[in-house]
C-alpha cells in the first residue's frame, strides 16, 4: 500500500536512517505514554504508603508489599463490586441480544405493518444527546408509568434501558438485510416458524455482527458512570466505577492504587484477548456510534 512517504525514498540510506529513528522514537514515546501509567498503577499498588507519595518516585518498589492488593480487595470490597459489574454487564448483554436481535429480525425480514415508522422513531433517538434525558429517565425508573414499579436498586434499572439502543438495532438490521430472502423463503416452505428460521438460519450467519454488538454492550456497562451512580444508591449494589470512588475516602493511597489496578485488569485482559474483533468492530460501526 502506498502512503505519503514512497517506498523508493525509504530504500535510500538516508531514508532508512530517518525511518528507523522515527520508528524507535514513536515506539518508545507511545510505550511511555500509554503503558507507563499502567506500569505506575501496578507497581504503585506494591509500594508502601510512604514510597507511593515519595518525590521523586521510585521506578521499582524498594520492597514488594503483596499485602496491599489483599487489603484493597478486602477493604474496598472489590470482589463484590466486580461481581456486580459483571452481573450488570452480562445481564445487559443478554437483554440486548434477545430483544434487539428479535426487533432487528422483525424489521428486516418479517416487515410488520408500520415497521418503517417504528424504525424511524428508533433512529430518531440517536439524535437526542443522552445527557438531556437523564432526569426524566431517572424519574421513569423511580416510578415506572402504568405499572408503578420502582426499579431503583434493582438490576432492571441498568438492564432494561440498555435495550433501547437504536444503534444496535440499526447495525443488526443492516446485517440481516444482507441475508438473502430466498434462504428464508426455503425455510418457510419447509414449514419453519419465524422463530425457528431466526435460530437455525439467521443467527448462525450473523456471528460477526453479534460479536461486535456483544463487546460494545459489555464495555458500555463497564464504563458507564452517571446512570449507575443514580440508580444504584446502595453500596452493596454498586459497580466498580461508583464503588471505588465512594469507598476510596480515608483509605491509604497505595491501597486505592492497588484497587484501581485490580479494577482495570478485567477489561484490559478482555481487550487483549478480543482485540481483533474489537478493532474491526470499531472501524465498521464506530463511526456512527
Amino acid at each position: 500500500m502506498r502512503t505519503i512517504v514512497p517506498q523508493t525514498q525509504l530504500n535510500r540510506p538516508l531514508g532508512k536512517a530517518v525511518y528507523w529513528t522515527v520508528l524507535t522514537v514513536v515506539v518508545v514515546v507511545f510505550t511511555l505514554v500509554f503503558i507507563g501509567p499502567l506500569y505506575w498503577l501496578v507497581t504503585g499498588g506494591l509500594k508502601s504508603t510512604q514510597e507511593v507519595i515519595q518525590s521523586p518516585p521510585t521506578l521499582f518498589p524498594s520492597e514488594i508489599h503483596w499485602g496491599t492488593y489483599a487489603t484493597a480487595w478486602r477493604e474496598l470490597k472489590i470482589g463484590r463490586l466486580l461481581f456486580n459489574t459483571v452481573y450488570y454487564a452480562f445481564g445487559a448483554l443478554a437483554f440486548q441480544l434477545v430483544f434487539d436481535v428479535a426487533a432487528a429480525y422483525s424489521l428486516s425480514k418479517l416487515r410488520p405493518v408500520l415497521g418503517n415508522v417504528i424504525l424511524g422513531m428508533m433512529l430518531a433517538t440517536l439524535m437526542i444527546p443522552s445527557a438531556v434525558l437523564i432526569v426524566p429517565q431517572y424519574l421513569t425508573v423511580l416510578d415506572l408509568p402504568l405499572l408503578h414499579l420502582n426499579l431503583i436498586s434493582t438490576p432492571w434499572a441498568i438492564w432494561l434501558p440498555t435495550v433501547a439502543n437504536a444503534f444496535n438495532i440499526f447495525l443488526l438490521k443492516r446485517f440481516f438485510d444482507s441475508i438473502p430472502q430466498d434462504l428464508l423463503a426455503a425455510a418457510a416452505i419447509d414449514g419453519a416458524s419465524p422463530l425457528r428460521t431466526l435460530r437455525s438460519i439467521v443467527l448462525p450467519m450473523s456471528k460477526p455482527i453479534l460479536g461486535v454488538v456483544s463487546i460494545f454492550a459489555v464495555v458500555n456497562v463497564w464504563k458507564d458512570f452517571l446512570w449507575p451512580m443514580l440508580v444504584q444508591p446502595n453500596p452493596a449494589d454498586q459497580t466498580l466505577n461508583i464503588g471505588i470512588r465512594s469507598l476510596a475516602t480515608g483509605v491509604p493511597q497505595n491501597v486505592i492504587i492497588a484497587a484501581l489496578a485490580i479494577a482495570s485488569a478485567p477489561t484490559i485482559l478482555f481487550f487483549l484477548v478480543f482485540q481483533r474483533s474489537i478493532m474491526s468492530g470499531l472501524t465498521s460501526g464506530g463511526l456512527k456510534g
Partner: protein
Amino acid sequence: MAGTISPYKTNRRSAPAGSGSAGRGAGGRERSGLGQKVRRNLSAHGFLFGALVCFGFFTWYPMVREVVMSFQKTKRGRTTWVGFDNLRRIFDDPDFWHAWRNTFLFTLLALVLGFALPFFVAVLLNELRHAKAYLRILVYLPVMMPPVAAVLLFKYFYNPDYGLFNDILRTLHLPTSAWLNSPDTAMVSVVIAATWMNMGGATLIYLAALQGIPGELYEAADLDGAGLLRKLWHVTIPQTRLILSLLLLLQIVATMQVFVEPFLLTGGNGPQNSTMTVVYLVYEYAFDLGGNNYGVASALGLVMLVVLAGFSALYSRLSRNSDND
C-alpha cells in the same frame, strides 16, 4: 398505510398492509386470507415487543416528559405548571453562563487536542511499516479502562506535591504547575486526562479512513514532485475530509456533554467553578443540592438539546451525503 409515511426507502411498494413481506417470498401466494395476514403481523410485532417496551419506557416517554417537565414544578409530590419560570430561573443563575463558558472552553480545548492529535497519530502510524499492531493496541488501551481508574490515576499524577507531572517538570528544571488546584489550569488538566483516556477510538477510525485512500493518488502526486506536506494537504486531507468532518461534529456533540472527567477529577465544579460544565449543572439541580429541582434541570436539558440539535442536524446532513457516496 404503512411505508408511505416513512422517509426510509425500502424496496417494498406502497402496497396495502401485509401483502409484501413474508408472503412474497413464499412462492407468489398473492392472496392470503385476512386471518393469515393478521397472524403474520402479530408474530412480527411479537418479535418487536421487548424492544418497543424498552424504547417506550426509557426513551420515547422520557423525551415527552423532558419537555413537559420543563414547564412544571414539583414540590412535595404536587406538580404545578409554572410556564417559563424554570427557564427564567436558569438564565438568572450566574452558574448557567459559567457552565456554558466552561463547556465551550472544554469543547474548544478538547477539539484542539482530542481532534487534531488522533489525526496526527493516525497519519504517523499509517506511514510506519513496523510495530503497527502493537502501536494500535497501545493507543486503544486506556479506552478499555474503567473511567474511575483512568481518572484517579491522573489525579495522582496531577498532585502538585508528589505527582509525577511535577516531578518530571522539576527534573527538566521547568516551572511546576498547580494543575487541578488552580482555576487557570484546571480545565486544561481535565482535557489532557480526557484526551489520554479517549483518543484511541478516533485514532482507529482515522486509521481505517487513511487505509482507504487509493495509492495511485500518492503516486500521481510524487510524479508531480509534491513534498510531504503538499501530499498531506492535497491528498490525505481531502480524501478523509468527510470522516474528519463527521467525527468533528460527533466530538462536538460528545464533548459538550462532558461530565465524568471533571466530576471525578475536581468534584464537578473545580476551583472557583472553573470546571463546572452544563451536564454537571443539570446534575446539581436535579440530584445534588437536595432541592430536587427536576423542572429546572429539565429546562436546562432542553436548552442543551436546542444547542446540540444544531450540530446534530448538520451531522445527519453530512452522514446522508456520505451514504450517497
